């Protein structure tokens, strides 16, 4: 592997990410799957880095899940997205940051469609005006939230309490990065580093002390695929995609996985459990799994936030062995306590994969 070759490509895929003043929209599903990630994003930007991030309870789904499940037509999605942009315009912002990769892909796709077919933009403006009385501007900058964390990765590194280094060996942790398909596969020039050798997560991992693992199936989809997962009869196909990735990364013995999509970390995490419970196979050392994180969780970990405040207890694959490797302290007693101190109850432990 020659890093210089990748650096050449990374130079070609850079995009302008604003430094401040974002209108932020959350994901439909991330708050259920990774309950603290979006809160941590806001906390890091507002409290650690004093940035202005605005969000409004009036924003809705972008329609992406319905769109990708063949339920919601694109004209409807355009109008839904126009309404989000109207909220941004009304709040006086020009920089749009979204938490979800599917939304990011859909926003990119629709802005591109409007560029090519201005008559559709006019139709959308008319539909939105008739339905809601609102008007909108297209954002000056569209960023995925991981672009924003990428932008401030070195500032986070300066404030970091921990590094992605194995404290027992002193060596960098081996990290698998996995970007959501809709981050840059449709529009490679909209993603940091492009689609073949994406740099957005790699940049974070490098800044925070880790080392990226490049394995043959790194570009392969996690297997979420919306309707493939949503329909039970198709789930074996979704599972097979994740399996293919793990088989490919296994020889590299990665310590952890970092992701930037709502679906990927969920499936890479939960399918490890399903593979273990149906086939008896684990991909981590000593019968453990390979822990999977969102980039916000990783940022929170290096900044020294309490792992349970980061929501790491809701992961299927136990995170404690990794916390021990880095040297991040945690209290097993408070693992299943809510923020209000109330006992949340303990999940049933899996049989074929080590849990804590």
């Amino acid at each position: 592997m020659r890093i210089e070759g990748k650096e050449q490509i990374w130079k070609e895929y850079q995009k302008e990410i604003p430094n401040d003043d974002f209108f932020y929209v959350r994901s439909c599903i991330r708050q259920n799957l990774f309950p603290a990630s979006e809160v941590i994003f806001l906390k890091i930007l507002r409290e650690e880095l004093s940035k202005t991030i605005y969000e409004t309870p009036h924003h809705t789904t972008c329609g992406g899940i319905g769109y990708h499940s063949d339920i919601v037509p694109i004209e409807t999605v355009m109008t839904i997205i126009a309404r989000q942009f109207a909220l941004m315009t009304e709040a006086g912002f020009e920089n749009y940051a979204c938490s979800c990769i599917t939304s990011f892909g859909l926003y990119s796709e629709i802005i591109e469609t409007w560029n090519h077919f201005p008559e559709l933009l006019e139709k959308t403006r008319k539909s939105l005006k008739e339905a809601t009385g609102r008007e909108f501007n297209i954002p000056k900058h569209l960023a995925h939230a991981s672009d924003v964390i990428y932008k401030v990765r070195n500032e986070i590194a300066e404030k970091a309490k921990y590094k992605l280094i194995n404290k027992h060996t002193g060596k960098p942790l081996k990290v698998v990065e996995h970007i959501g398909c809709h981050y840059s596969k449709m529009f490679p020039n909209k993603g940091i580093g492009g689609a073949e050798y994406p740099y957005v997560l790699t940049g974070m991992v490098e800044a925070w002390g880790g080392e990226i693992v490049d394995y043959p199936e790194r570009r392969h989809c996690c297997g979420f695929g919306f309707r493939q997962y949503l329909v039970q009869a198709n789930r074996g196909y979704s599972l097979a995609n994740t399996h293919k990735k793990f088989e490919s990364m296994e020889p590299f013995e990665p310590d952890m996985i970092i992701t930037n999509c709502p679906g990927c970390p969920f499936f890479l995490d939960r399918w490890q459990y399903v593979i273990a419970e149906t086939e008896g196979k684990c991909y981590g050392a000593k019968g453990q799994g390979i822990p999977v994180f969102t980039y916000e969780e990783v940022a929170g970990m290096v900044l020294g936030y309490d792992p349970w405040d980061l929501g790491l207890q809701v992961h299927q694959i136990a995170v404690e062995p990794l916390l021990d490797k880095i040297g991040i302290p945690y209290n097993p007693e408070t693992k299943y306590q809510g923020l209000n101190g109330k006992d949340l109850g303990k999940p049933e432990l899996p049989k074929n994969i080590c849990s804590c």
Partner: protein
Amino acid sequence: MINFGYKRNESATLDLDVDNSELYKKLLKEEPSAATCISCGTCASTCSTGQFTDFNLRKIMLLCKRGDTQSLEPIINRCMLCGKCQFACPKGLNTRHIVLILNKHLHAGKIS
């Protein structure tokens, strides 16, 4: 083990990293002309059997070469050995011999 109501799909990929070339090597040894097939499909288009069954000599030879031999066993003996393919083949392959060799090895020990 838990039954979740679904199972991981098996891969449809031809995996050339798994060495399954035994049958093809035997074929080449006994009928070297098999190596010069250009997959033109003349044999399959003229085939008496191929019009009515899924027997396709072009594909059979290709899959044999790729080591995907499992699927060949049930279809190889559908050939009626009429020789039309041999007559038509632009590369002059001894196609009847090829069929007989594959048949012999695929059903080795299975016919009493």
